[in-house]
């Protein structure tokens, strides 16, 4: 449980970090909060040549609400976002979901963008980003590009980020007036990776449900305002599309059941809190 040798760069600016990524590409890993990276390093699941620490870059520590989005910089911790002003108004979904992310100790270190970069299929923050039709701002030494969250995640721990790119920020869409939001998660223990997590956004003419923990990435579906059997049918089709796998904690069948049941609950809950 000791990492393989690596170089460590504590970057003072985004430019310095990006220059290191440009130079080392695939052999570099970004360290922000380290809550996933450090255990993986210690177990030698990763053996990067260089660790680029971005946690001290002040310009990446911002939380801004503008252009219809809540932009969260690369070094913002999960507890930092939770404590940010008016989160319950700016993003009721995030306010509801963040307490489910690990434990307060890990949230004090773990970053919002780090969770997105890590792309665990069960993680809450990527799920919220997809549910809220968010974006990932990727920056390399050469350019900056923005990728829609729904296309950013392509598999377990796998994203569209190129080796020379850093997630500079993620942008969660600000709530539409009158929209309702709800988040629920089923895990074995408080703070565990979700067996199934559901996030719903309901506005005047649309239901959007995102599900984590069942597929190999967070997946969302939009429906018109369905009710009763029509909603159950839609949820059932979604559950079957996601499929799910058996693992040591739960069966695929159980996961599909949770999509059907918890999916319905969050949609009803989101509806009930529509303004």
């Amino acid at each position: 449980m000791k990492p393989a040798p690596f170089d460590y760069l504590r970057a003072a600016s985004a430019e310095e970090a990006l220059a290191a990524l440009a130079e080392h590409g695939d052999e570099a890993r970004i360290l922000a909060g380290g809550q996933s990276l450090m255990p993986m390093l210690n177990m030698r699941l990763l053996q990067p040549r260089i660790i680029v620490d971005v946690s001290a870059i002040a310009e990446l520590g911002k939380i801004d609400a503008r252009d219809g989005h809540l932009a969260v910089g690369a070094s913002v911790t999960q507890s930092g976002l939770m404590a940010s002003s008016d989160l319950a108004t700016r993003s009721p979904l995030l306010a509801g979901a963040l307490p489910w992310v690990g434990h307060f100790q890990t949230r004090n270190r773990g970053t919002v963008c780090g969770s997105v970069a890590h792309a665990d299929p069960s993680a809450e923050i990527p799920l919220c980003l997809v549910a809220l039709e968010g974006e990932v701002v990727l920056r390399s030494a050469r350019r900056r590009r923005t990728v829609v969250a729904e296309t950013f995640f392509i598999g377990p721990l796998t994203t569209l980020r190129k080796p020379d790119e850093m997630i500079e920020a993620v942008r969660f869409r600000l709530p539409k007036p009158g929209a309702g939001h709800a988040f629920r998660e089923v895990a074995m223990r408080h703070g565990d990776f979700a067996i199934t997590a559901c996030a719903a956004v309901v506005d005047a003419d649309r239901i959007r449900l995102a599900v984590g923990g069942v597929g190999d990435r967070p997946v969302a579906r939009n429906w018109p305002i369905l009710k009763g059997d029509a909603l159950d049918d839609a949820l059932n089709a979604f559950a079957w599309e996601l499929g799910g796998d058996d693992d040591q904690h739960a069966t695929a069948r159980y996961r599909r059941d949770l999509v059907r049941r918890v999916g319905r609950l969050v949609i009803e809950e989101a509806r009930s809190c529509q303004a």
Partner: protein
Amino acid sequence: MTALTKAPSELAPAAAAPVSAALIGQPIPRLEDAAILTGQARYTDDLPIKPGTLHAAILRSPHAHAEILGIDVQAARAMKGVAAVVTGEDAKRFAAPFLVGVRAPMEHWCLAVDRVRYPGEPVAVVLADDRYLAEDALDRIEVRYRPLPVVMSIDQALSGDGEPLHPAVGSNIVNTRPFGYGDVNAAFEAAEHRISTTVQYPRNSCTPMECFVVMADYDQADGAYEVLSNFSGPFAIHPVMAKALKVPGSKLRLKLPPNSGGSFGNKQAVFPYIVIMGVCARVAGRPVKWVEDRLEHLMAATSATARRTDLEAAVSGDGRILGLRMEQTDDVGAYLRAPEPASLYRNHGNLTGAYRIPALDVVNRLAVTNKTPTGLNRGFGGGQLYFAIERLMHRIAVTLGLDPLDVIRRNLVPAAEMPYTTASGGILDSGDFLAAVEAATTDGGLDELKARRDKARAEGRLYGIGYAAIVEPSISNMGYITTVLTADERRKAGPKNGAQASATVSVDPTGGVTVTVASAPQGQGHRTVLSQVVAEVFGLRLGDIAVNTEFDTAKDAWSIAAGNYSSRFAGAVAGTAHIAATRLRDKLAKLAASQLNVTPEDIRFAGGRVFAAGNPDNSLSFSRVAAAGHWSPGTLADGTEAALRETAFWTPPPLKAPTEADIINSSACYGFVFDICAVEIDPVTAQVRIDKYVTMHDAGRILNPLMVEGQILGAFAHAVGTALYEEYAYGSDGRFLSGTFADYLVPTACEVPVPVMLHRESPSPFTPLGAKGVGEGNSMSTPVCIANAVADALGMDISTLPLTPARIAALIEKPEVARPASLDAAPPKAPAIAGGRGLQGEGTRTVPASPEQVWAILLDPKELAALLPGCDALDLAGPNAYRAEVVVGIGPVRARYLAEVELTDLDPPRALTLSGRGSSALGFGEGSGHVTLEATADGTRVVYRYDAAVGGKVAAVGGRMLDSATRMLIGQFFDRLIARAGGPAAVETSPSLLTRLLRLLGLRP
């Protein structure tokens, strides 16, 4: 509390006789906690190492079962900073296989010789200047394995199918022992009902915070080993280690540190590593240190036995059990490792629990599987036993339409029959079980719980109440394990019995008192309780007593029963300290008597003074009396021995060797536990919520109520884990799946409610202070009590643990809502059982080329190399067989695999099997895919079905992503195939490629 912490001497008025507050039985807060909680306590890893110490890292088997074809350590040995690489060859040279507790030709070496039998089995050790370098070098050792079929369950071992783990034994059931007590057949003939049940108890463990640590040195000149390790005992294992190192016990000096980061029995299992590190120190000629990491601990340290129990009871009309047939099969893992089969035999005297069951037939079996060897674990053997017995009680009630509590009441041993001898020989020493049950139902508020249940059920909710009544054995008889031997075998081996405890109390020239015991502290509060006991004997303050908890086999008094296990601290160890202190006090009384001109019987000790009973002013200070033996031995009366130090040995009188008829009292005393649990099950998630838990204990005399409640809370928390969360999971292919605390789920403060704790005190007649053990009871009673509550809530049978939401959901779910016909293709076929399979799946892709063209691509090594993720080139190794170095990864997790790839079952251009296997520092992977090609209008429909296995580190830490990762890699393969064959991504290049392919096939010039 303040009165207790003030010095008794301060409380004593000058004129009156000095008095000391009673200390035994008082709620004294733990004296050791200030140091532990402020980081001042020193644990084994904190202790200084000898100059020149090398650091060890262990290479472990990624396979559950494989033949070792060869180990190449040259590259590792050549690395800078590496002093030695030690393998099974060295073990064969310097060590011997471990002694085994049954007569069967099984060899267990400290490092694998010829074969590995469980994932994580130690194969080689690198010794280097630091741990980092040692781990770097691990990656350079090449081991060639030939995988063997695996045995992954008790039922598989019982079936007789499957590869024998130990070919010389010939069966994976390595021992079968029948026992008969009383006329069971008559009981069954007389009984109105026969009620049976079969349960399976899972593998789990208590996972102490501190993992194993060993520091070992070998003295070439003396031929002696010196080891410092956080071993916990039993010291019956000391001879096992000495024999494995091929030295007499006196040449294996074993020291234990003053503090422990927890054990719960698990630290017993450090012993094979003590032997490994002994061999390493000898090979390297330098001291070595090894610290186990969490992955190693979870994967390969130890485990409770999994057990299958089949019970059949002869039951009267009113629910009394007249006779019981019991078959128990323990999964002991790959080797029967000392002190196993302890888990199976520890409760042999109390197999009938707290009940009066006059006739009992037992068949005990030991199964070996390709899993970690088992060992001591809080409650060991008890959780397994009572899961079966108490499920049976519940089942009897349900079957006969009785109240489960009435069935318990009718079968409990009556108080009038105490001490009660069970059918198999246990002597239940004291207690009024029925009174304890009544007190628990009243004080625990059972009526209110029943009302809550009625209300919940009326509302359609799933609410249930469960019970469990058990006896909690403490202070194991060292002879109980020999019950596994036949009477004849025992006669040859010589009698084994008793449970020697030892304690030493000494006084120093200033009147300070030091206590040492042969027991390593693991949370029992050694410092506090021993201070209470000894201070009370001498009439001193707690602070006057120094408790030294270090231990040294070369200097301290010990026996093979020494150590901290089987709840022996309160009953045996504290009691023995009391005996030693009392003896020393009596000697001091003689000295004081001569100086105070009274008889020794008139001497009193209190408030730091030694005085005459009738005349308190006629007194000496304790320190003056204590110092006499140091400063002025010449003044002692002739024939009077100086009172400096007293060592007492004590063994519980009722512990005899098993009789010819296999009658055995397996423990010195038996506490009583009765639990009530109320649960509600969430109809949406099937999660269990414990609404209320009541636990009643009679553990004899309570030495310190705070300590007792701490023990109960700890065991209860462990048991909640056992009941609802924890399992060492394996795939049916042998891979281990619980390598981190993200997958081995220990409940936290969020998940563990605080139970209502109730107490009664029926002192044991057999222990010096009347105390019994209390720290294991809930590990035994609580898992089944929760299971009974869940069974009551669901109105269904519960036959295994842990009761995860998915397991409960599977019990209550209706047929699944059908997959809508509107969806396209079926998803990959999902295997039926969670946690028990290899990786399997199937799929279909359409490739825009003819079957002949696709065939040509697959059979061209250059093309095939380009399709395989992370592969640069394939080297021909035989007809359609290749070797390659591939870098396979999921996201950032990547490893370089040395792989073998083979195409077989060729049926051109219709079908073939593509198989591969590879190994890397992260483990091994192997798989085969059957591919069929079928011409369609769009090209070729490729249908594939695969079966893969992954083992080692990646499987142990990433289990929940293995399926999707496998699919992703296969997906990449077909994406590239489609591109190569002219799919959208490679449209421009396809004509030339096609031409080239056709040329290769000889279809074009």
